């Protein structure tokens, strides 16, 4: 039975750890399907974490913090659009600028306002999201198998965990089953054809970026107002890039991206478990090397054991209307 509960707790933490990656990958799908590269997921996630924590601290309500985080992330997405859609600047440069700006700004402001080397004050229980216990979780706990699955794995997560996995079918439906989604994908594949059909390419890309901003805000709020009770510097720790790699590995498709996100989450959960454990034949692996596993996995996935990733055709190119 100990083995079973080990597995259950591993799956439980996989679901939790994958959550910000899932939000970020879904956000990335919207931007990149519309033809706009988004390496700035990392910066936006960090911004959301900062704004959510600070907002919730001052306003006393995590939902208001989340709302402010959404506003902040949509603004950053609009900045990215302003630079790379309207002014046709280099999209990658714009993302790098946003990432570096946010790493600096969040830590600098946290230090200036709270004077604790880039930490925000710890949130009280009212100011953060708490774990949600699903109905009957307690009473079903002792039922074999079902109890383990329902009470130990599915129940007791933060609200963001459930929202993240609900967002996947929703994103799938919007992108592949609605006329908005059709236009979105068309703008990323062949913008001039879409323009000929009378659809505003720029407006479509801005809309996609706005949705992207909303989704990524959830990832950041999850980090600073749910799993942690404060913001600390560079707390996104490369998750924006991991999510992007998962999205590319998932071929810009919500379902396969989800699988890749879960794979990352699982390696990370495993990585945490492996720290300090003596492995047969190998012995104890130094903690620094174990921590590098998700990053190595990203490179391996990107190198692609499943063939070359084909990006949306018009990705990275600013659209220039014919004169």
């Amino acid at each position, binding site marked *: 039975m100990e083995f079973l509960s080990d597995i259950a707790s591993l799956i439980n933490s996989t679901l939790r750890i994958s959550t910000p990656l899932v939000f970020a990958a879904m956000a990335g799908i919207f931007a990149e399907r519309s033809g706009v590269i988004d390496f700035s997921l990392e910066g936006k996630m960090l911004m959301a974490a900062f704004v959510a924590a600070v907002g919730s601290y001052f306003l006393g309500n995590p939902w208001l913090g989340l709302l402010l985080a959404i506003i902040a992330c949509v603004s950053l997405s609009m900045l990215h659009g302003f630079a790379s859609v309207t002014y046709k600047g280099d999209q*990658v440069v714009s993302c790098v600028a946003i990432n570096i700006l946010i790493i600096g700004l969040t830590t600098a402001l946290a230090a200036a306002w709270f004077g604790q080397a880039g930490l925000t004050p710890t949130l009280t229980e009212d100011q953060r999201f708490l774990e949600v216990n699903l109905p009957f979780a307690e009473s079903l706990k002792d039922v074999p198998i079902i109890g383990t699955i329902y009470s130990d794995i599915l129940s007791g997560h933060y609200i963001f965990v459930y929202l993240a996995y609900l967002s996947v079918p929703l994103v799938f439906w919007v992108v592949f089953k609605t006329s908005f989604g059709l236009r979105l994908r068309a703008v990323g594949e062949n913008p001039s054809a879409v323009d000929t059909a009378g659809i505003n390419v720029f407006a479509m890309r801005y809309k996609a970026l706005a949705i992207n901003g909303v989704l990524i805000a959830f990832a950041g709020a999850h980090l600073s107002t749910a799993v942690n009770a404060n913001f600390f510097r560079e707390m996104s720790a490369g998750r924006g890039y991991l999510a992007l790699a998962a999205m590319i590995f998932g071929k810009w498709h919500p379902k396969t991206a989800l699988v890749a996100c879960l794979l990352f989450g699982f390696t990370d959960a495993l990585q945490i478990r492996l720290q300090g454990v003596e492995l047969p034949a190998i012995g104890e692996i130094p903690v620094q090397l174990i921590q590098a596993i998700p990053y190595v996995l990203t490179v391996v996935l990107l190198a692609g054991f499943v063939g070359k990733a084909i990006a949306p055709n018009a990705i990275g190119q600013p659209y220039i209307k014919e004169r």
Partner: protein
Amino acid sequence: MAPVDKSKVPWWVSNLIVPLVNLTLALLVSGLFIFIAGENPYEAVRLIIYGSFGYIEGFAYTLYYTTNFVFTGLAFAVAFHCRLFNIGGEGQAYIGGLGVFLVAINFSFLPVPIVWLLSIAGAVVFGAAWAFIPAYLQATRGSHVVITTIMFNFIAASLMVFLLVDVIRDTSQMGPHTVALPKEQWFPSFKDFASLFGIKIRYSPLNISFLLAIAASVFVWFLVWKTRWGYEMRAVGHNTQAAIYAGISPYKNIIIAMCISGGLAGLLGVNEILGVHHKIVAGFPAGYGFTGIAVALMGRNHPIGIFPAAFLFGILYQGGSEVTFDMPNITRYMFVAVQGVIILFSGALENLFRPQIESFFVNRLNIKASA
């Protein structure tokens, strides 16, 4: 607004006026940040200028930072000419430093100048090797170098901490760093140089690596604009299809450009290890690799632009530390944010006012010509 005929725009408008306007905008926004953080931006500017020019040690520090930024700026620029975004300067510099140290410590029986040359070669080889894997994956598998090089930064950091803690740590000390190199291998510093003229300085990290930075700038200029390699690299960067049609291999050039870029970033290790710390200290690249991006974009990816841009960032860094010393609300992260703003305005938003500025000057020149 109709774009102006590019050939009619004088070089100093597009290469001097426009970047200066963008820089001014970036600094205005940065001033706003300092204001939000609760300090006086005007006072901050005064401190920056005093800290970087006001006394000889400060000015030497400015030049020391300049040295680092020249290396990482050139590194980003070389890859950028091939349309590659090498964000991995940080990791390449870290591994480059490992190369310097390993060569210097293992060949210490050789005469010092030869050890220096070998160490520089070690920095280049190790830095290039760290850039090679992302380059190879980009060339063969299309794995975007932005993600892979970022990942290689994380991996380099983990690897180096592992080495510093478990493998090459100076076991007689507590901190995660190696033993010091023998004293005769240390690069002559500005302090030694100044004492020749009877000027006494307490301490200065500035050393002869500054000359290496100048040499590297000349090398990059020659390589990119005067050699066949440079031509092929730029051709692949401008138009890959046309380059293939002309018989130029994008595969080969992506790898060459990235390796040269990584090698240049590795040179940062020479300045830091032989010139300053004389041992490997955990985290010595300290963000210089990322600053190189801003330096290169501001300097329009040309050595002649990169040098003054690196100097400007030297002023910001050294003056910035003066600011953090005097203003409790400002930390060094504020200057990371300033870099982001500079990248935004001189990179991504460089077309914001370019058409207006260019047509303004072209019209004025036309009026003059017709008068």
